[in-house]
């Protein structure tokens, strides 16, 4: 174990996998000479050279599509999009090409690639740079979708993603790069599709991922204190496939669920999880599945407004009070 930043854990995963397999290369805007817009690729150009760490033009459809083709050609591209707000330009290559390659070719072609980059709100970046667009990918069969909340998860999941024989969409969070945590050294691989109990608790299940999970982890003891509830924190880590078993097990124990999601909630991964729980745990639910998401507006720039638009403790605790029918302490609606 070593304590390191989330971005360093990602860097370590990249370096180890590039060391391990010559077919792995990294491509994206500013990944090489600039060492990455968020410094995830720090030092990789020096270490692996310009053949394997490649700066691209600003042309997301072109270079992501090129990555898709390179994967079909037998390489293992890790394609960095500076943020997923920009990856929307490349969706044709991912949704219409990568996700369907193995199927349409009846297994004669494959597309082992990772598309990775920053998601979410980085702090006063306004409407176009603060989006969590995960559901553009979770809706699509043929893709795996991963989202890491901690440095350890970042490392273990990215290594799995790179080794996966199919396209994996890997969401990092713009506001997590500088967060810290213990990370196992060397070979540390977390299977895709496996969730994690980030805190065991008896009263209510809170499901979250990425930055929202991190915020919860950091504040959960105080939140338990304030609400008088013993909260169980479940991080699915993969949004597709979802670790239903882990989620259902928790809900069958606590009988109450709040899903906290940084994305807009409409037709989102959170909606999917809610739908599955109400069906999978119908007889166990003492209250409806309740959700806290990005308010249904584009992100305003002004910081005090942003704080209200994102999920926050006030809204999460109101949801906790609602699923416990007021058994939780505190709050005007409690």
């Amino acid at each position, binding site marked *: 174990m070593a304590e390191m930043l989330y971005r360093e854990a990602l860097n370590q995963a990249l370096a180890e996998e590039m060391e391990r397999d010559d077919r792995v*290369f990294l491509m994206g805007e500013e990944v090489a000479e600039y060492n990455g817009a968020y410094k995830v690729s720090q030092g990789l150009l020096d270490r692996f050279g310009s*053949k394997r760490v490649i700066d*691209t*033009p600003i*042309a997301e*459809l*072109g*270079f*992501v*599509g*090129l*990555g*898709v*083709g*390179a*994967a*079909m*050609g*037998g*390489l293992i*591209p890790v394609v960095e999009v500076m943020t997923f707000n920009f990856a929307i330009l490349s969706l*044709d*290559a991912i949704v*219409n*090409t990568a996700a369907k390659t*193995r*199927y*349409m*070719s*009846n*297994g*004669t*072609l*494959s597309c082992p690639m990772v598309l990775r980059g920053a998601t979410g709100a980085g702090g006063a970046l306004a409407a176009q740079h603060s989006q969590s667009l995960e559901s553009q990918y979770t809706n699509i*069969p*043929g893709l*795996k979708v991963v989202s890491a909340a901690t440095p350890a998860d970042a490392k273990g999941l990215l290594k799995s993603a790179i080794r996966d*024989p*199919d396209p994996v969409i890997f969401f990092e969070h713009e506001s997590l790069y500088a967060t810290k945590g213990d990370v196992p050294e060397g070979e540390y691989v977390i299977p895709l*599709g496996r969730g994690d109990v980030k805190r065991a608790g008896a009263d209510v299940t809170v499901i979250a991922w990425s930055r929202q999970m991190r915020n919860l982890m950091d504040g959960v003891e105080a939140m338990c204190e304030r609400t008088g509830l013993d909260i169980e924190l479940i991080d699915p880590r993969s949004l*597709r*496939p*979802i670790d239903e078993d882990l989620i259902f097990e928790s809900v069958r124990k606590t009988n109450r669920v709040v899903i906290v999601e940084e994305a807009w909630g409409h037709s989102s991964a959170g909606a999917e999880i809610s739908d599955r729980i109400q069906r999978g745990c119908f007889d166990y639910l003492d209250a409806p599945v309740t959700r806290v998401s990005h308010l249904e507006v584009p992100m305003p720039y002004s910081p005090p407004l942003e704080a209200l638009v994102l999920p926050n403790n006030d809204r999460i605790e109101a949801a906790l009070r609602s699923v416990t029918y007021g058994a939780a302490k505190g709050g005007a609606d409690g």
Partner: protein
Amino acid sequence: MATQKGKQEGNGKQASASLSDEQLLDLYTEMVNHRRFEESAARSYGMGRIYGFCHLHIGQEAIASGASLAMADGDMMVSAYRIHTMAISRGVTHQEAMDELFGRATGNVGGMGGSMHLFKPDNGFYGGWGLVGQQVPTATGLAFSNKYKENGAVVVCFMGDGAVHQGAIHESLNLASIWSLPIVYIVENNHYGMGTAVDRISSLPPIHRLGAAYDIDHGEFDGMDVLKTYDAISEAFERARSTSRPTFLEAHCSRFRGHSMSDPGKYRTRDQLAEEKSRDPIPTLAQTLVERGLLDDEKISAIDKAAKERMKKVLKAAEEAPWPDASEIHTNVFAEGGTNG
């Protein structure tokens, strides 16, 4: 070719000059087979045996055959959805292709792809893609993988005159140029994207000149003449192999049928179509081979008859071929199987 990064004017060598008699006859036979295959597909479509969209290459067969002949082992071909002939030139059998169009388990890709999505990577055929322009970044990535692996392979990537205006093409040409990728882009300019004449939606003509903007060698050729096609593409392959530079070529050609089976083709007059058909690549090659004493009327009809008979058998077998098993629905979504929901 005289100057790098200029117009491809022909390099003096004509690759076709060294084709053997046997190769020339094979080429002719292949093109006749292509034609008969496409005609059989058209009839079967009319009879409800082929489904969905079906785009025929009738009139453009020389491009499939000429390009395929220019390829060496390990080279790769990528195209859009008008691909029956290309897949077949790359070794998909007539039976596998027809079975696929019929949606059968014995088809080229087990009935999963259909007319637009044929694949045979073992023989260098990489599809088979339905969104206009989408195959171009993909093909550029294949070229990248070959350069990375230093395997000397060249990619040939086709697109239509309608596809050229997609942003993906601009992005790909720039990438191929700055990274010197061994790829030959070929625009099959058949003058129409569906019902739209290219000059109504393009400021580019001549299309191949777009290459100049990206410092890419470019040129044009008569895609109705398989030998000229072979020469032009061979020259570009040679450039890719020796200098790893891309080439952007424009093939002047005509499709003799509608865009797809549902297109009545009202945007062309009868006269215009007749004029286009007068440059049919199959009689054009026949004429050359007759002049060289390799073909005569008798051989021509024998080849044709054999092609027709072959297609008859192919159709019969396709009709009798089994449908895919329902379990196939859940295979090949992922490598490990399962739909992994």
